[in-house]
């Protein structure tokens, strides 16, 4: 089972991970279209801590999955084939229980323009293309995909 690890001494605080995460979860897979046409600004599942020169926060794929236990709708689940913790945003009702339960602060609330709301978290780019986009985009090797 895999997870994304951050080596904070290598993080240069650029924020490219956020941009590529957003684009990789878009329909167009194009950065410009994702931000402007699709309006996906803020849907990144990895967050750079502002004012800090080297830390990006993303899901740690906890073995004891507190978010799954907290979930009232069953949208937050462990994907049977990959073993990753994923939130099914179609089922999610936006109660934010998972956000409260997460010990690492890496689940984020998202409101669409029409009022729909759901929790966003890293899904190891399983719903997108191959290698996690943030790992590929990191210029300094601070983010790596590791076996747990």
């Amino acid at each position, binding site marked *: 089972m895999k997870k994304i690890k951050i080596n904070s*001494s*290598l993080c240069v605080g650029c*924020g490219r991970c956020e941009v590529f995460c957003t684009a990789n979860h878009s329909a167009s897979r194009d950065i*410009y279209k994702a931000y*402007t046409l699709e309006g996906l600004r803020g849907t990144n599942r990895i967050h750079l801590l502002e004012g800090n*020169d080297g830390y990006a926060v993303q899901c740690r794929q906890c073995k004891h999955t507190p978010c799954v236990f907290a979930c009232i709708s069953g949208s937050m689940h462990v994907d049977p084939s990959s073993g990753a913790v994923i939130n099914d945003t179609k089922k999610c009702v936006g109660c934010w229980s998972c956000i409260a339960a997460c010990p690492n602060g890496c689940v984020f609330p998202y409101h669409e323009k029409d009022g729909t709301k759901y929790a966003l978290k890293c899904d190891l780019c399983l719903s997108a293309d191959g290698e996690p986009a943030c790992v590929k985009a990191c*210029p300094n090797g601070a983010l790596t995909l590791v076996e747990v």
Partner: protein
Amino acid sequence: MSISFQMPRYEVLRREDRCVKCRVCERQCANLVHRYDADLDKMIADEMQCVNCQRCVVMCPTRAIAIRRYPLEYRENANWTERAIVEIQRQAEGGGVLLSGMGSPDDKPVYWDHMMLNASQVTNPSIDPLREPMETSVMLGCKPDSVTLGADGSVKTKLPPQVRLSMPVMFSAMSFGSISLNAQKSMAIAAKKLGITFNTGEGGLHRDLEEYKDAAVVQVASGRFGVHTDYLSAGCMIEIKIGQGAKPGIGGHLPGRKVNADVSVTRMIPEGTDAISPAPHHDIYSIEDLRQLIFSLKEATEYKKPVCVKIAAVHNVAAIASGIVRAGADVIAIDGFRGGTGAAPTRFRDNVGIPVELALAAVDSRLRKEGIRQRVSLICCGSIRNSADIVKAVAIGADACYIASSALIAMGCHMCGTCFTGKCNWGIATQDERLTRRLNPEIASERLVNLLSAWNHEIMEMLGGMGLNSIEALRGNRLMLRGIGLNQKELDVLGIAHAGE
């Protein structure tokens, strides 16, 4: 209060059809050029601060940025160029000596580009490096003129201490202080992997690099920063830096803002003070003083390490080199006027010294004429940009080449030339922790290994093309070179014929 005449040198071109206001450029620019303005909901640039380091260009996720020369179009004047005018303006405002980083950008002849190599055809076969062994390894050090035999008929002579290199390239001196520890570490890792050496420069050897000390050339410069007995014995060779090509006649210069705690400990100087090395070594005022220093160093290291003397290429370099050989040096490094630097007075960088191609030719010929060429190995430096430059340098007479700017470029340097500000956005010429972390030694050392492995292959290909399978057979083999677009005097100094002859 009056107004400054200084205008920006570069402008930032931002494509609005690409920029998504992600602010990566803002976070990455140490010169604070980019800013997100919430009122305008736009990224804006203060181009006055831009030094054209290209960090934002490379980091932008959508490649929305390009840096262009600021269109400061003074009336055309071949004599009063924009640069000539701007430099006067700066001095009129600041009253200081102009300082520059990296090697001279002036439009003076690059002789490497005027020499062409031979290839074997018909009368002599070229050799295929993919199918035949091709030897590029080199031994630097003093060699005797002949061998003596023992009673059993075998060779009795023992070679004096040598530095063994897997290829004729070494990383040149760049001090810890002028560059970051991560940058030096990257070169140390790469040197060890490749079987070559890196050089401490005049900043001493940081304790974190001790595991790489067998690949280190330790430098003793005029400021004697970081020099103690363990330091001398640590490396595989000791280098006495008399001068460097970028600023012949003056010593090294590390601005105080780059002297942090770590640099202070390694150099053995107070934090925050400018580290300005004296112009001469104050114990070398004549050639015999150099002989005394060379032998002091040899005594201190029990004659186990070869001693190199690095000089800048100046007018009487051949005579100086001859003197250095007779003073007991095992290796001589000749640094041409194009050599790079972290900080040098602009006037010295651009106007003092001569091209290394000519200096190397003159020194090699002079030492052979005096019959003392075997006593030293020659290292050539002062802008070696690619493997062809190395092959040509060896053909003129060098044993090996030092590279510095090439190595920095491989690690991320984009030649903006503002090293002395300590705000290197690539984490190379800075001690600021927020910037030095940008240079990951694992990644940077791999880039260096890639670069030099590629160059080694290219050298083998060129050797094979000339019908050679060993680099010794190329050393001083000037018939392998022909000049193009050179006058007779230049050809004579280089000791080569013109193409067509």
